[in-house]
């Protein structure tokens, strides 16, 4: 267990030492989204009855920031260690693949949640939100960041160069998060795109998270929990299999 705690500590210390770019920068980015979209759309769009657009947007932005940063944490840490070669410091000691997985995953969750809290606190200046179902909110925050943390481990192990990781991020993670209902309800989409959105797991993370705030969502929280839960278990299992086999880490 000491090995696990140490690796978790090291991973958290790593992002905390550069918190300017790992925490503050994403909070600023989210703030810009909020300023622009609420300025443009506040007067024109009301997604749910009684919920102003800015209020609707905040949970989406918080969750999007959490997910993107959870992914960034594990993936960038691993690719940096692989490219600089210091991954051997983690491979030579008797760390089990389970400890390795848990430490990287949990550090990603922590980074995601810290950024999410930061975004939430900043948005308080623009809109007050009441949280109707905090438990749902917490469950989706942890499962969502966990999934993206696991995905980050997979991408970090798979990628051999920074541009491969950037491709993974730009062609998979970014489109999935942007097209997941952060900025809109999927009910506003044409029928075809509504259907497509239902195959995007991130849609369920955002939708479930938003339900935690407003008690209303595009689909039921139970369905979202099911989809997100299955994704979490499946991706964790895949990550563990890769780590156990030594895929791209132990030749």
């Amino acid at each position, binding site marked *: 267990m000491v*090995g696990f705690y140490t690796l978790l500590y090291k991973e958290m*210390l790593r992002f905390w030492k550069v918190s300017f770019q790992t925490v503050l920068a994403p909070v600023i980015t989210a703030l810009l989204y909020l300023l622009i979209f609420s300025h443009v759309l506040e007067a024109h769009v009301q997604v749910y009855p009684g919920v102003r657009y800015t209020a609707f947007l905040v949970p989406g932005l918080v969750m999007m920031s959490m997910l993107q940063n959870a992914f960034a944490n594990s993936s960038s840490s691993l690719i940096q260690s692989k490219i600089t070669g210091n991954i051997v410091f983690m491979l030579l000691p008797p760390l089990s693949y389970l400890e390795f997985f848990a430490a990287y995953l949990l550090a990603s969750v922590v980074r995601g949640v810290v950024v999410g809290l930061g975004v939430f606190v900043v948005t308080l200046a623009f809109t007050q939100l009441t949280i109707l179902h905090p438990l749902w909110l917490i469950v989706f925050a942890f499962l969502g960041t966990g999934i993206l943390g696991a995905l980050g481990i997979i991408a970090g192990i798979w990628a051999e160069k920074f541009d491969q990781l950037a491709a993974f991020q730009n062609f998979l993670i970014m489109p999935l998060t942007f097209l997941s209902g952060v900025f809109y309800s999927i009910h506003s989409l044409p029928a075809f795109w509504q259907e497509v959105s239902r195959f995007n797991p991130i849609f369920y993370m955002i939708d479930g998270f938003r339900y935690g705030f407003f008690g209303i969502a595009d689909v039921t929280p139970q369905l979202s929990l099911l989809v997100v839960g299955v994704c979490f278990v499946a991706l964790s299992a895949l990550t563990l299999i890769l780590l156990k086999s030594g895929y791209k880490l132990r030749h």
Partner: protein
Amino acid sequence: MGTTPAILVRQLHKHFGSLHALQGIDLEVQQGEFFALLGPNGAGKTTLISILAGLTRASSGSAAVMGHDVVKDYRATRTALGVVPQELVYDPFFTVREGLRIQSGYFGLRHNDDWIDEIMAHLDLLDKADRNMRTLSGGMKRRVLVAQALVHKPPVIILDEPTAGVDVELRQSLWAFIRKLNEDGHTIVLTTHYLEEAQALCNRVAMLKQGRIVALDSTANLLKSIAERHLCLRITPDALPAGLAARVVSYTEGLYVLALDHYADMEGVLAQLRESGICIQEMELTQPDLEDVFVQVMGAS
């Protein structure tokens, strides 16, 4: 304890695609040995070390450290092993002390500061303890790599070319420290291209060539295996008696190098020179060293 070999390798093969990097290595290193693994680049030294360390998986065969199989019992193996990697790697996020504490934690050790301070003192790192790794010179980073391999006091220590690109001062202090660890009972395995280091330090040597062990013996026996000694001579007049012509190995700018099969041959050579009225200006008798053995072994196999 004493009967378990520190390292036991049986019929180890490793393929990288079409490359047969290790072709059936059998090796046994006893506890307390100071062992050298020599060979040209690409001979398979680092591959062998990587398999022992669990960084690479063997295609077939078995390997064990202190009796623990490197695959089945990987946690016990890695606890017993300290590896100084060949590549000069470091984590740019941390200071020297942070790095050593973190490395201790990976091995399950929580309060290791006394030992960390001791290692740093031996490696002259104390005044760099709170410096970020990025700011250290290459030689200092090499010292930190050595320190990292020792945080858990491993009974078996493998050093993969620890003195490559390192200045004389560090080499000497490093070897003094490693020698002390060996005297304290640690088994040491090293690879190096500086054969005089291996000759001075190691009690036993394995030479690898193209994935095979081509020589494996005590350093003393390997040196004895080269019977020929060389006698270097500068003489006036510069004309060697005909009877000695068969012994000439080389002649460059007035310097003859003669081969002697035994020390006893000296007498005959000197007698012939005297008879011919030749005066000796300069004379040196050279011992065969590990480099001669290495060249001979690599050339023959």
